């Protein structure tokens, strides 16, 4: 392509993006001075705790009011893990060896148990303190990732075999749906923990907020296994 054409194309692109940016600026400017109504969130804030039993409103929205979104999202992780699993080469690819110093080895061995405790805490106390299935799951996923980085992929593979990971993932997802089906068996609709008053208990205690802690657990297992599988496949790709 001639040089002039290249430069013209470059400025054309910049012009495009600038026009879009200015346009959106006007829109946002106009949006600011509109009176915005938030009655749905006011309702969540005022009656959220009584209806779902969970103090952490975000978890109550995520797992009770809009539980279906979380199911959809869990499927997205599962599909991503499945895609990456069939992407990786069948034969074992040696990961590029990263020789960490002895200090790293020792610290990892020491902090792994704390990670487990932290992850579990975040999952179980998801409906009381900030946190929840996703954050806890990520921290749990860090453990196999650290092991893989530290001791190389072959060691971590036989520690936690890929089949086990996809098994865990499957169990997490199926658990989530079965808990949802509990709502139907209890007479009201799918994923109905608040409405079907599954022992809401008094808010603030560990065993409260109906199904939410168990849903949290299921999502935690699923996200943990899923992210570990994704990380391993990406590493094996290399």
């Amino acid at each position, binding site marked *: 392509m001639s040089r002039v054409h290249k430069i013209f194309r470059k400025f054309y692109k910049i012009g495009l993006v600038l026009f879009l940016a200015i346009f959106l600026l006007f829109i946002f400017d106009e949006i600011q001075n509109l009176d915005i109504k938030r009655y*749905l969130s006011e309702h969540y804030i005022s009656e959220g705790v009584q209806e779902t039993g969970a103090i952490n409103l975000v978890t109550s929205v995520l797992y009770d009011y809009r539980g279906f979104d979380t199911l*959809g999202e869990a*499927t997205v992780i599962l*599909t991503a893990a499945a895609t990456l699993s069939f*992407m990786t080469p069948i034969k074992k690819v040696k990961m590029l060896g990263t020789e960490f110093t002895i200090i790293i080895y020792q610290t990892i061995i020491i902090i792994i148990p704390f990670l487990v405790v932290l992850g579990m805490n975040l999952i179980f106390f998801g409906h009381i303190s900030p946190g929840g299935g996703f954050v806890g799951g990520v921290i749990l996923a860090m453990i196999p990732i650290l092991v893989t980085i530290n001791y190389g992929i072959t060691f971590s593979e036989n520690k936690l075999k890929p089949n086990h990971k*996809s098994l865990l993932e*499957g169990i997490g997802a*199926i658990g989530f*749906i079965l808990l949802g089906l509990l*709502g139907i068996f209890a007479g009201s609709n799918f994923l109905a923990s608040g409405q079907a008053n599954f022992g809401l208990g008094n808010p603030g205690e560990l065993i409260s907020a109906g199904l939410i802690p168990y849903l949290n657990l299921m999502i935690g297992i699923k996200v943990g296994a899923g992210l570990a599988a994704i990380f391993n496949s990406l590493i094996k790709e290399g």
Partner: protein
Amino acid sequence: MESAVWIILLPLLTAFFLGIFKLYSDKLFYSLVIVSMVIYLYLLILVINDSYPPKVYSIGNWGLLGINLMVDSFSAMFLLIIAILFITVIIFSLNYIKVNKHKFIILTYVMIAGIAGMVLTADLFNLYVFLEVSSMSSYALTAIKKTDKSIESSFKYLIMSTFGSFFILLATILTYYLTGTLNMAEISLEFKSVPFMIKSTIMFFFIFGYGIKIGLVPLHAWMPDSYEASPIPYNVLSSGLVMKSAIYALIRLLYVIFGVEFLTESGILNIGVFWGVLTFIIAHTLAYQQSNLNRLLGYSSIAQIGYITIGLFLGNEKGLIGGSFHILNHGIMKGTLFLVLGIFYYSLKADEIEDIQGLGYKFPVLSFTFVVAALAIVGLPPFNGFISKWLIIEAAIEAGFFYAAFFILVGTFLSLTYYLKVIIKLYTKTEKKTLIEKPDLSLKLPTFFLGSLCILFGIVPSLPLSLINNIPKFLLNNSEYIRILLGG
């Protein structure tokens, strides 16, 4: 009435269980596939039958606080397509797919769940989530063959469609910011007070985002590549369901949230119709140039989506009926064409036009089905394509878009040019071809089933039309839809 949820849950549950069974025993895997397919068919028929007075199913029994699913005739028609195409594709791919067969079936189940979710949900963010679920599984299905071409086409599809879903997410966030709720009925009530400029920007963002997934002309470039490189059973689903669920979601948004008055006032209907005409003229011209059969059918799908866009963007009752009937017809016709090509590929590794020379005499009945489906998709009378095109043209004239109606006929002529080229190649005699694998009944039966549907819906269109005729009641004047969704 909780079978509406089961339509989304059953494929998901089967996919997860298959994920586990895959590790242990094949026999268990296939038996579960067959059993869940039969139950799913029964469930779909159950929901389609009692869909006339639309029903709402609220997840978690939260009513307007949580997410609601809504089954009305438009979604019932779409479930009918899912019922027809999904069953045939699963039976077809049980022994058509050789590479990654387990993964293919799992991902197809997840995609069906995503599409069923998009079709049933009456909640804006939930629509986005299920859109991502179905798109994610279609990226995976495009790349499942792991050839150079499929990896490249899957990457291009991924980037283009993510580029689109940015704008869909941006529009969803802005709608939430303006209205404070995510339930479609409440949004359309709140949207009455929003100024014109902002409302139409959000509408344009939605149209642009979904436009990429539908494949309207300037945004279509990724689609023929994905058709060329992905496995043929997935092509049937992609042209029959994935493209259609995108336009379904767009129409659901436009007619329910923005309402017909706003659409006509903002002039988007004229833009939509013009865009449809532009799409199929360019798609037909390009289709003529192709030598790879899958790419040719890909361009023809883009053209047919152009007709559907015209039908649905006319804004009158007949247009909606014609458009949705064409969605149903195109799914069936394109499904037959792809399955026949699948059998040719399965038996002779034939995917270029030259390779299928003389197959008319080697597979007489199969080529007859191909000819029937090709004539149907061109829009010649005795078949179903003609009926839906007749309805769309009539609606276009009624709505005053004479140029669009005329160009549809020009489109019919253009599509005849390249389909006839393929048919003639099919019937030119050539030297003996050795068959790599004999296609058995489980491949041929679905093809004949879809082919016979082409003829059946052409001769007796009142069968599907009885379901489709009451679509406009809940789309054109969305007050009815909103009253029911608000628990009226």
